[in-house]
């Protein structure tokens, strides 16, 4: 410190060492860094130097015209989200520094804030319109949150009530929370928030949560910052915001994938799917075990039915077989009976034939006997024995007296001999 206690007029040498101008200015500049302040003034003499990484402008006291030149890196200017114009009243967060090549004192500006509610509102409306026209707030851009998030990145202030509320309400589902402490109030928070987002962008997380409590539009300035809005829009995993507000929603919450207003609501979103999962598991368990039981019962019934069916069919086959057997048996009996009759008939016929034939033979025999007897009776010998005689002339039998003439030699055949006579 060059001035002890800030009030002392007693100049204290840094050391007895003799320094070069350059080294001395380095020491002075290092000391000047510690007198960083928020400076209120009006912008003038803007020099943007296109293509370069820095810019210059001046800030002037509106009352007495006191002026100091300002140096600002364009990256910081971009991050500040404020568009400078001549006469714009701003608050600069800056520290003094001596530019070594010419020894000029200037303010090294780190941050620019707009002054007054009206200016803030105007800037908010303009940026909102611009981002809206780019489609950044479109519902089509919103990404689905991971159903069962486990790795959560959180950005909020370590000291606020927000993180406490969140941790009190988050369920014990084994979340792996990676927390990055960040300022969340005012314009100063922008760089902090951007740095936190950049840190978690590289982390292995399922989703990012950005939270802060309620406050005035002015205190929300960081969450209306264009650079932060774009960083959230481009974040590789879905982002949930839990940023409390009264009237106008901070632009970061409009661009996030899911926005709620309190840390408790964020915790509830993270809890809900896990709670539902347990119910779903129980439902599935009950459902398919009962369905499987039903299936088994159905199949048992089918098997039982099949058994009965088979038994019925077998019985039916056996019954048919039994009937066929019975019919066959009856048929055989019948055939047997018929055959018996046939045999009897044949036997009878045989007997009849034998009998008939025998009778016929006897009859024939009798007839033969009678015929023989008759023939015998009718034979000339028999006739001769009865006293009859046969007269022959030579070999001719004399049947009429007319065939005999006187003197013919006749032979009279008798049963016991021949008498030779002469007709007279």
């Amino acid at each position, binding site marked *: 410190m060059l001035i002890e206690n800030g009030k002392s007029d007693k100049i204290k040498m840094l050391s007895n060492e003799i320094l070069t101008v350059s080294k001395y200015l380095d020491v002075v500049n290092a000391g000047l860094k510690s007198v960083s302040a928020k400076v209120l003034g009006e912008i003038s003499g803007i020099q943007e130097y296109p293509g370069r990484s820095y810019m210059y402008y001046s800030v002037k006291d509106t009352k007495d015209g006191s002026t100091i030149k300002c140096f600002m890196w364009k990256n910081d200017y971009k991050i500040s989200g404020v568009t400078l114009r001549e006469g714009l009243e701003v608050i600069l967060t800056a520290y003094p520094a001596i530019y070594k090549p010419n020894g000029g004192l200037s303010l090294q500006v780190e941050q620019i804030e707009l002054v007054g509610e009206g200016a803030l509102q105007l800037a908010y409306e303009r940026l909102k319109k611009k981002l809206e026209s780019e489609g950044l707030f479109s519902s089509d851009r919103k990404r689905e949150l991971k159903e069962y998030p486990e790795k959560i990145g959180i950005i909020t202030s*370590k000291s606020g009530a927000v993180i406490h509320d969140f941790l009190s309400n988050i369920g014990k589902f084994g979340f792996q929370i990676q927390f990055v402490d960040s300022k969340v109030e005012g314009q100063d928070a922008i760089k902090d928030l951007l740095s936190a987002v950049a840190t978690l962008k590289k982390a292995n997380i399922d989703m990012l949560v950005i939270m802060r409590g309620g406050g005035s539009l002015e205190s929300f300035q960081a969450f209306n910052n264009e650079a932060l809005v774009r960083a959230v829009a481009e974040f590789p995993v879905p982002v949930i915001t839990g940023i409390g507000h009264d009237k106008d929603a901070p632009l970061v919450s409009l661009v996030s994938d899911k926005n709620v207003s309190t840390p408790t609501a964020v915790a509830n979103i993270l809890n809900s799917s896990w709670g539902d999962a347990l119910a779903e598991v129980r439902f*599935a*368990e009950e459902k398919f075990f009962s*369905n*499987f039981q039903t299936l088994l019962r159905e199949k048992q019934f089918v098997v039982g039915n099949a058994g009965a069916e088979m038994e019925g069919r077998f019985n039916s086959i056996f019954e048919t077989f039994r009937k066929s057997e019975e019919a066959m048996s009856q048929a055989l009996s019948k055939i047997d009976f018929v055959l018996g009759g046939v045999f009897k008939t044949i036997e009878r016929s045989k007997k009849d034939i034998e009998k008939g034939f025998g009778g016929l033979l006897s009859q024939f025999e009798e007839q033969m006997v009678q015929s023989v007897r008759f023939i015998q009776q009718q034979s000339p010998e028999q006739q001769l024995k009865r006293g009859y005689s046969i007269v022959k002339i030579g070999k001719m039998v004399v049947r009429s007296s007319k065939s005999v003439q006187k003197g013919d030699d006749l032979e009279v055949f008798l049963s016991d001999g021949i008498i030779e006579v002469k007709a007279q």
Partner: protein
Amino acid sequence: MKEKTTKKRNLNESLKRLNQIVSWFENDNELDVEKGLELVKEGAEIIKNSKERLKEIENEFTEIKKKI
């Protein structure tokens, strides 16, 4: 092998698989008991693991320093 696969599944996949199993029982008209038994076994394993995962598990809280 199957058991290992089931264990490796995350909760989301497990619930999807459980829903598929429930749908199989509800939609298939000609249900195969053998297949059903297989699915019940698989489902029981998933349920066991899912319930294990859904038990109260302490959260891990790590503060990361900003990288500037």
